[in-house]
């Protein structure tokens, strides 16, 4: 082992509890873990590809449904949620940096802030889902908007004067929009919950002081997952809320 560079020799002599036997160094272990995470993210992108495909097919064939039905979504809440998710992505990226620099306490605090961001996102999403439920804006033929909901979109004219469709003329199969809305945001919401669970896991490990500049892989991998969740929302927001 005399050909090892000093840092790697140093790592090996530590017999770190977090370096698996089959890896020569933390660096090699990290590179392998990161590639594994990217391959997992590839499968996630393909999974979301399915719902994006459904969106593309229905929007290209029935643009009038999307243009008419998107008025029921609250652009303001959508923009707030985008901001919350971007901010939590920022604190996550900062947490990875803190772990890489041995700033253990800062890393723990930033992971906690990221987790709070996830809670905020789900809280706002819950408010939105609840109002959709109360207004009868459900999937496919369960789409039965209440008179109040239909009345409400008539008063958005200042915002929607450019739209070709009239608020009072419900297009055929209008429920398709909410089928796709709930599939896309629902699948995304499940990923937010999964990401928050993973952040909770690295938060506990960070609080126990298990991460260092030599071993920070799990924070980085969880970060990649959380950024992917953010990245998908970056597309969902204009595709669902900002239809022109």
């Amino acid at each position: 082992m005399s050909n090892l560079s000093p840092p790697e020799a140093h790592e090996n002599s530590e017999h770190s509890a977090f370096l698996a036997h089959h890896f020569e160094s933390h660096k090699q272990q990290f590179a392998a873990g990161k590639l594994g995470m990217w391959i997992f993210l590839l499968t996630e992108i393909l999974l979301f590809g399915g719902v994006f495909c459904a969106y593309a097919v229905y929007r290209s064939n029935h643009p009038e449904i999307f243009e008419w039905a998107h008025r029921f979504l609250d652009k303001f809440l959508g923009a707030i949620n985008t901001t919350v998710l971007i901010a939590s992505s920022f604190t996550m990226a900062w947490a990875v940096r803190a772990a890489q620099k041995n700033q253990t306490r800062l890393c723990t605090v930033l992971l906690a802030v990221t987790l709070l961001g996830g809670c905020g996102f789900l809280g706002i999403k819950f408010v939105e889902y609840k109002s959709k439920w109360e207004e009868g804006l459900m999937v496919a033929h369960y789409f039965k908007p209440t008179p109040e909901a239909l009345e409400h979109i008539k008063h958005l004219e200042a915002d929607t004067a450019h739209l070709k469709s009239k608020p009072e003329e419900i297009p055929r199969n209008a429920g398709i929009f909410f089928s796709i809305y709930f599939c896309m945001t629902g699948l995304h919401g499940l990923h937010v919950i999964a990401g928050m669970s993973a952040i909770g896991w690295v938060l506990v490990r960070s609080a126990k002081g298990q991460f260092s500049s030599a071993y920070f892989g799990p924070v980085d991998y969880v970060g990649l997952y959380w950024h992917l969740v953010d990245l998908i929302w970056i597309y969902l927001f204009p595709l669902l809320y900002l239809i022109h």
Partner: protein
Amino acid sequence: MSHPNPHSSYVHVVPLWVLCAVFAALLVFTALTVAATWFDLGGWNLILAMAIATVKAALVALYFMHLRYDNPFNALVFVAALVFVALFISLTLLDTLQYQPDIRSWQQAHPAD
């Protein structure tokens, strides 16, 4: 990358100012994409919204996800996923657009109640 001492990191650590600049840029682009809906650009509205989303996604992938500093093979995995999603969507669209006229004529023959 050189190792000045055993406690330095073996990966590139993204400077804090870069993370802050990317965060600020993402907020500006979010405001822009909302503001873009106030203007009627016809078919260009969707293209502009997708272009802004793609710039935002690129910033997240390059800096927050470290792809700019990473082993290029990880970026290749990511791009491969996007290529296959694009193939998937475009081939499906080709097929469904093909039989739309049949659906339309059926709908005209069977008006909704």
